[in-house]
C-alpha cells in the first residue's frame, strides 16, 4: 500500500500552516520530515492519518493494505499516550478489543509484540512504573499489534534522554530490518533523520512548503555513525535548517 499527498494546504483560523504539500510514501520506505519549529510537521502528520481534514488537497491511499492489517495508519505519539489505568498488556489489548480479538488470539499477539520490543517481563506493569524509554517501547508494541501498513511517528524520541534515544533508535532500525514497514517520521533531530530516512523532506518555516527532498541511497543496516555520506547529508540539512531559522528570526525583527 502506498500513500500520496496531493497539494495539501491548511490554515488554522486564518493562519496559513501548510502550503501545497505533495509527497509520496512508497511501501516499505521511511520518509523523514524535518523543518523548523512550528512549521506544521505535526499538523501534516495529523492530516496524513485522518485525525484532521485539510482545507485543500487530499491524502490518497493507493492499493489495499496488506493481509491481516487491522489499522492501516497507526500513530506513535511523542508523549506515548498510554492509558495510565491499564497495564502494559491492557494498553495493547485496548487496540485489539474493538476488532473482536480477545482471549488466546489477543494473548498471542501481545506476547509477540512485547517480545519484539523486549518487554515480555513487563506485561503486568502499570505505565507509571516504567521509564520513558520503556513507555515509548510499549507505544511501539501497541502500534505493531495492529499490523499497520504505515507507521506515523511524531518525534517519538523527543521526550527521552540522549542515551535512551540511541538505544531506541537501534531498536527501531532492528524492527525495520526484521520486517520492513512504511513510515513517516517527524523529527527535529537531523542525526535521527539520516539514520532512519530513505528520503528526507525538508519543510520551510511557516507556512510549511516542501523545500527539498533528499534521497539517501544507503541501506539502513549500513548506516553507522561517522559514515561519510551520512555526514555529508547531515551537513547539507543543517545548512538548510539554519537558513530557515535565520530567515524566521529576521521576519520577527521586521514586524
Amino acid at each position, binding site marked *: 500500500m502506498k500513500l500520496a499527498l496531493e497539494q495539501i494546504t491548511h490554515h488554522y483560523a486564518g493562519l496559513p500552516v501548510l502550503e501545497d504539500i505533495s509527497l509520496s510514501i512508497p511501501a516499505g520506505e521511511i520518509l523523514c520530515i524535518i523543518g523548523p519549529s512550528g512549521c506544521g510537521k505535526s499538523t501534516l502528520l495529523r492530516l496524513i*492519518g485522518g*485525525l484532521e481534514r485539510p482545507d485543500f488537497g487530499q491524502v490518497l491511499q493507493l492499493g489495499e493494505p496488506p493481509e491481516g492489517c487491522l489499522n492501516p*495508519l*497507526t500513530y506513535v505519539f511523542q508523549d506515548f*499516550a498510554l*492509558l495510565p*489505568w491499564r497495564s502494559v498488556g491492557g494498553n495493547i489489548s485496548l487496540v485489539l478489543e*474493538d476488532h473482536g480479538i480477545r482471549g488466546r488470539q489477543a494473548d498471542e499477539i501481545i506476547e509477540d509484540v512485547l517480545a519484539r520490543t523486549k518487554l515480555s517481563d513487563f506485561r503486568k506493569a502499570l505505565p507509571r512504573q516504567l521509564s520513558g524509554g520503556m513507555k515509548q517501547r510499549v507505544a511501539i508494541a501497541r502500534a505493531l499489534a495492529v499490523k499497520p501498513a504505515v507507521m506515523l511517528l511524531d518525534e517519538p524520541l523527543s521526550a527521552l534522554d540522549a542515551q535512551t534515544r540511541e538505544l531506541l533508535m537501534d531498536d527501531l532500525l532492528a524492527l525495520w530490518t526484521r520486517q520492513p514497514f512504511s513510515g513517516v517520521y517527524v523529527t527535529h533531530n537531523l542525526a535521527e533523520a539520516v539514520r532512519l530516512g530513505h528520503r528526507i523532506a525538508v519543510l520551510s518555516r511557516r507556512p510549511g512548503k516542501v523545500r527539498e527532498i533528499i534521497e539517501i541511497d544507503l541501506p539502513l543496516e549500513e548506516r553507522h555513525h561517522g559514515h561519510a555520506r551520512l555526514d555529508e547529508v547531515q551537513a547539507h540539512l543543517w545548512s538548510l535548517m539554519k537558513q530557515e531559522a535565520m530567515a524566521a528570526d529576521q521576519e520577527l525583527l521586521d514586524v
Partner: protein
Amino acid sequence: MSDATLARSGQVPTRKVAFRGGGFRPVAKRGIGFVVFVALLLVIEWGTRAGWIGNLTLPRPSDVGQTLWALAESGQLWVHMQPSLTRLVVGSLLGVSLGVAVGVLIGLFSYARAGLVPLVAALFPIPKIALLPLFVIWFGIDEASKYALIALGTFTPTVVSTYGAVDNVDRTLIRMGQSFGLTWWSIVRKIVVPGALPGILSGLRVSLAIGIILLVAAEMLGAEYGIGAYILQAGSLYDLEKLFAGVVILSALGVLTSSGIGLIERRLLRWRA
C-alpha cells in the same frame, strides 16, 4: 584528598546550606483525627462536670452516649435508621447516576453543553428545601417526594463535578483512541470515563454530604420515623441529649460515606501514584 575536605581546609567561612524544601504535601496520618475527636469530647465532659460549661449550653457527652445506647437497646435506633438509610440510598443513587450521565453528555456534546450548563447553573443555587412543598404536590407526601428532593440535591453537584472531570481528561488519549479506530462507545467507556473517575469520585463526597443534609431537612418537614424526625422531636422538647444523639448519628453517617468513597478510590484508582 577529596574536594569536600579541600574546601574545608581553607580559611573561608563555612555554613551548611539551610533546608527550605518540603511541606505542601499532606499525607494521611492514621488515628490523628480520632485523637482530636476524643480530646474535644474529654474537654467538654470535663467542662460540663466542672461547671464552666452550663448544662443548657451543651449536654454532657457521657449522657449523650447513654441516650444513644438506650436508643440502640430499645431497637428504636434501627426504627429511625432504616427509613433514613433507604431514603438516602435511593435518592442519591438516582441523583448521582443521572448526574454522572448528564455530566458526561455535557462534557462530550456541544449542544448538550450549550443547553444544559445554564440550566444546571440556575438549579444549583436554589435551596432545594424550599422546593419540598412543590415536590409534595408533585409526588405526594410520602417517600417519593423525599427521594426526589435528595435526588435533585445530589444531581446538580454531581453534574458540575462530572463535566469538569470529563473536560480534564487528556485529549491526546482520546486522539490516540481515534487513531486506532476505536468506536465512539469504546472511547467513552475505556478512555473518557476512567479518566474522569478521580474527579467524579471527589465530587461524590460533596454530593453525598449534601444528600445527608437534605435527608434530614425532608424528614423534618414530614416523616414519622427517620433521624431527621427524631432530631425535630428532641429539638421541640429541648431535649439536648437526644438532639445531640441524633447529630452524632448524622456525623457518623457522614464519616461512613466519606470513608466508603475513600475505599472505592483506593481500589479503583490504584493506577495513580
